[in-house]
């Protein structure tokens, strides 16, 4: 799976460079997010700009990262969702669960705030 990771301050920007997130690579994504959290990176920004297609297992992998981040007083936020990918979050009501930002700048600003307060909004 093609993923790039950049660290800045306490934030970790994770860019998924895959057109598809499905049962073929979602487990790898889940494990990848889990490892980052275990390594102490607690403020994860996942950039989905390159992702054209996501299935239920892909949503599940992100949800797993989200729950794990929360357990550790961290956060996982999303950015770059293409319209049809965003629809999949809407159909499953997950757009109400995840913090979703339309631009990377907004996501960075939001995670800065979280950072300043030393906890996520939940």
């Amino acid at each position: 799976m093609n993923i790039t990771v950049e660290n800045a301050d306490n934030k970790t920007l994770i860019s998924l460079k895959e057109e598809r997130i499905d049962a073929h690579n979602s487990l790898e994504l889940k494990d990848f997010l889990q490892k980052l959290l275990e390594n102490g990176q607690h403020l994860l920004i996942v950039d989905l700009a390159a992702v054209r297609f996501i299935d239920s297992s892909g949503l599940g992998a992100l949800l797993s990262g989200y729950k794990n981040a929360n357990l550790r007083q961290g956060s996982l936020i999303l950015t770059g969702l293409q319209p049809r990918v965003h629809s999949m979050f809407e159909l499953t009501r997950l757009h109400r669960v995840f913090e979703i930002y339309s631009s990377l700048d907004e996501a960075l600003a939001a995670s800065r705030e979280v950072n300043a307060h030393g906890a996520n909004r939940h």
Partner: protein
Amino acid sequence: MAPTDIDLEVTVPTHTRYLALIGNIAELLVREIEEYAGDRETLAYHLNLVLTEALANAIEHSMCCSPKQKLRVHIHVEGESLCIQVYDQGTGFDLDAVPQPDFDQLDERGRGIFFIRTLMDSVNYHRDSNGNCLEMHMKLARHS
């Protein structure tokens, strides 16, 4: 055969690496459906998704069986009717017993059949000569 009929049958090894192939074939096919009145790219995504979900289930629940088994998909467009059949060689399940997901519970699983039911007009699961078959139907809106 009417001028708009398309019939496609594909068999691949039981492995998730073929999900993209079959989903993408369905997308190509949608782009050739004549006179479709809806948004073609949305339909393409939806068929890609229902195939991906159905095949992922077929793969997961076939693990038990012979290595000779394969993933088999049949897509048929005839006039306004679109039918997708996905076969599995597992022990089968009761489709009607699969509950709607609980949206307040953040379960990592259990949204596949939900997507299929939401995006297709009708779904049934039965046994035929080729194995267990998840059969999904949709009525295609056509320009008149």
